[in-house]
């Protein structure tokens, strides 16, 4: 499985995802700049956190217009895994690959801490190595992480088991239904505000994020 890490101007977790996949998981991974017009040969896409285009207008709103996004959308429609964390999640909603939107945290503050999460759905290609309803801890670091969607969309997300991660204790940002991460209906696109790539080695103090990448790579192996 060959994985692309998309780099936008203002991305700042691209190195973290790259290292999580390359150094920790020995995966075949490459940086792809925002101006690239082809993702030919790639089997999966990672959209990292950060502040693409300075979060101008709305977080993720401008990144949607980057040339590479046409290809990201193409891969997503083909059913290939697409993963976005933090700003990556915001970009995926702005690009229409995931429903809903991320608005400013209710506190109006940037929140940076480790939070407990529930793995609500462990049947996705990204969460197979977690136990059902397992409690994990992952870091969050965002100002615009309050998930919002209208009631019909929320109901559909719940009914289709698209809510993959939920904040398990306090809700750090005002997200509806305590949503921390969702997939699209097909299940191949995952967006989440927490940062699994920052929790992949003991030296980082936390390895709870590692199994997300392992799940994906195992899926890639089986698929190939």
């Amino acid at each position: 499985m060959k994985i692309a890490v998309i780099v936008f101007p203002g991305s700042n977790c691209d190195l973290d995802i790259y290292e999580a996949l390359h150094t920790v998981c020995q995966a075949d991974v490459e940086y792809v700049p925002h101006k690239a017009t082809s993702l030919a040969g790639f089997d999966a896409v990672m959209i990292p956190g950060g502040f693409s285009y300075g979060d101008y207008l709305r977080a993720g709103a401008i990144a949607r217009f980057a040339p590479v996004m046409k290809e990201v959308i193409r891969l997503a429609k083909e059913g290939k895994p697409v993963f976005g964390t933090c700003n990556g999640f915001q970009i995926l909603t702005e690009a229409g690959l995931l429903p809903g939107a991320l608005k400013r945290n209710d506190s109006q503050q940037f929140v940076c801490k480790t939070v407990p999460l529930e793995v609500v759905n462990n049947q996705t290609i990204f969460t197979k190595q977690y136990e059902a309803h397992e409690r994990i801890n992952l870091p969050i670091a965002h100002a615009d992480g309050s998930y919002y969607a209208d009631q019909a969309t929320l109901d559909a997300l719940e009914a289709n088991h698209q809510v993959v991660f939920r904040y398990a204790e306090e809700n750090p940002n005002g997200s509806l239904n305590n949503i921390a991460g969702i997939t699209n209906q097909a299940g191949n696109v995952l967006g989440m505000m927490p940062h699994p790539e920052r929790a992949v080695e003991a030296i980082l103090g936390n390895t709870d994020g590692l199994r997300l990448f392992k799940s994906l790579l195992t899926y890639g192996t089986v698929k190939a």
Partner: protein
Amino acid sequence: MQVRIFVTYKQSVFDPQGETIKDAIHTLGHQEVEAVKVGKFFDVTFAPGTKDVEAAVKEIADQLLVNFNMETYTYQVMEDAE
């Protein structure tokens, strides 16, 4: 020709900034204020003679300036600056 496009949260979306500002207005003594909504506006200047400005405004708002999951917009055509 200049168009001012106003973008705000939809009525159904909680606007914590607006709520906090309303509380401050109450502290100021203006209990008669019932609601405050925070938004942003964009002054968009079109080249003279641009045809179908309204259609352009709609597309710019729909595709870029507004996230319809949580926001809505209005606009007004400004007097031409002399």
